[in-house]
């Protein structure tokens, strides 16, 4: 507590010291960094290293998105890091996928360590028609496989769509640098097995997402 108070006094001094001339943007950045450092503390599994940004997070933290050139470069780097299913098996069990899609838990400071995370899908997307409580931050994924003509996921014609979808789930930033969607595989939020189950929810013709 003493540290917090000292730091906040230091920030107060910094604020007061610059009262005459407006701060420059770099000075404001520095002020913000000081405030962040003094304000957050570790709690449960939510450790302070989570505040250390990678290059992509930093580039996507502005009021405006980065330039097209920067975005393209970031996307290429993210795409290169995607881990494809080693055994070439893309689809798991859509029933497990539906459970994951409903589950919004995991990785908060109130979650115990070692408990698998949910996929949070319904928070932002429409999926199966029966679930009326869905978010709209992301596009509707109802009829995802059907609309993309995936009638037989094992057919060679489906392969491109399988890879595209896997890429989205593993690392959404590979196709859209500042996408709002987490990088589920890349960040270790979901395992390859869990992503397979979500793939099945989206692409298995038997999944309620693709029910006619």
């Amino acid at each position, binding site marked *: *507590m003493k540290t*917090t*108070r000292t730091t*906040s*006094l230091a*920030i*107060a001094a910094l*604020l*007061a010291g*610059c*009262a*005459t001339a*407006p*701060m420059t943007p770099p000075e*404001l*950045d520095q*002020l*913000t960094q000081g*405030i*962040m450092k*003094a*304000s*957050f*503390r*570790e*709690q449960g599994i*939510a*450790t*302070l290293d*989570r*505040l*250390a*940004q990678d290059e*992509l*997070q*930093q580039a*996507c*933290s*502005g*009021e405006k998105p980065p330039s097209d050139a920067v975005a393209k470069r970031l996307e290429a780097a993210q795409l290169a890091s995607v881990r494809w299913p080693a055994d070439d098996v893309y689809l798991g069990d859509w029933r497990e996928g539906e459970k994951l899609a409903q589950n919004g838990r995991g*990785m*908060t*400071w*109130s979650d115990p360590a070692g408990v698998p995370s949910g996929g949070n899908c*319904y*928070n*932002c997307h429409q999926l199966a028609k029966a679930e*009326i*409580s*869905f*978010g*709209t*931050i992301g596009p509707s994924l109802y009829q995802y496989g059907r609309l993309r003509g995936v009638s037989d996921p094992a057919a060679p014609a489906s392969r491109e769509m399988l890879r595209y979808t896997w890429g989205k789930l593993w690392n959404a*930033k590979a196709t859209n640098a500042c996408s*709002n969607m*987490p*990088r589920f595989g890349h*960040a*270790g*939020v979901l395992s390859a097995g869990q992503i397979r189950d979500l793939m099945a929810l989206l692409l298995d013709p038997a999944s309620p997402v693709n029910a006619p």
Partner: protein
Amino acid sequence: MRRRALAFALVAAAFAWPGAQAQTGTADGIAQYRALLADGNPAELWEAKGELLWKQKRGPKNVSLEGCDLGQGAGVVKGAFVELPRYFADTKRVQDLESRLLSCMEAQQGFNAAEIAATPFGRGEQLNLEALVAYVSAASRGMKFRLPQARAEERQMFEAGKRIFYFRAGPYDFSCASCHGEAGKRIRLQELPDLTRNPGDGVGYAAWPAYRLSSGELWGMQRRLNDCYRQQRFPFPGYASDATIALATFMGVKSQGSVSIAPSIKR
């Protein structure tokens, strides 16, 4: 009465919503549910308790908070909430309602502010803070936000708040803007106010503090932000820390001119 009128306006708005036809039934249902709850907000229980606490002699020094200056002069409650956060010369800090109450509890009543800030929500003196926050915010119900930005310190907190709002980090890459940077979006069935601009009367910043139906508790802005950060998968923002005050300054300035309905009632 005003709240009721607003609730009906919301119902009307829901019916007029030009969005996807398939969703209209659900949106109407939710609007109807909220209208049925508009009368009889349990936040009133906290308002009443808060008023008693404000006037009661408490703490090691056994004095009331009636000498507390919330920015409008000692003891003035009405109108204080819609001008916070603001700069206070005695603490040399920009403060939101909750950090200011803590300062008063320490300076005047002799409480240990750091100890209260470290107390988990919903326990001990934090329970009393909830009630005080309900009481003070209710005294500005129907008034428009007009946060002062005359001082450099206040403008700097706005700028810091803006940077914190857009700061993406953690395992999910979330920032405040991930959910509150665009109008017309929802998480599940809950509309998300666009906090990068003025979301309007009684929406977003202008709806907190609020009674939370899910937990049956009164949440101040500090707890609202704290739970946002939990869901963002961030580390824990200290109670009344400068990051939370900077964010409140950013959201409050964006909401200038909108009418406060706090304490409201929320899912």
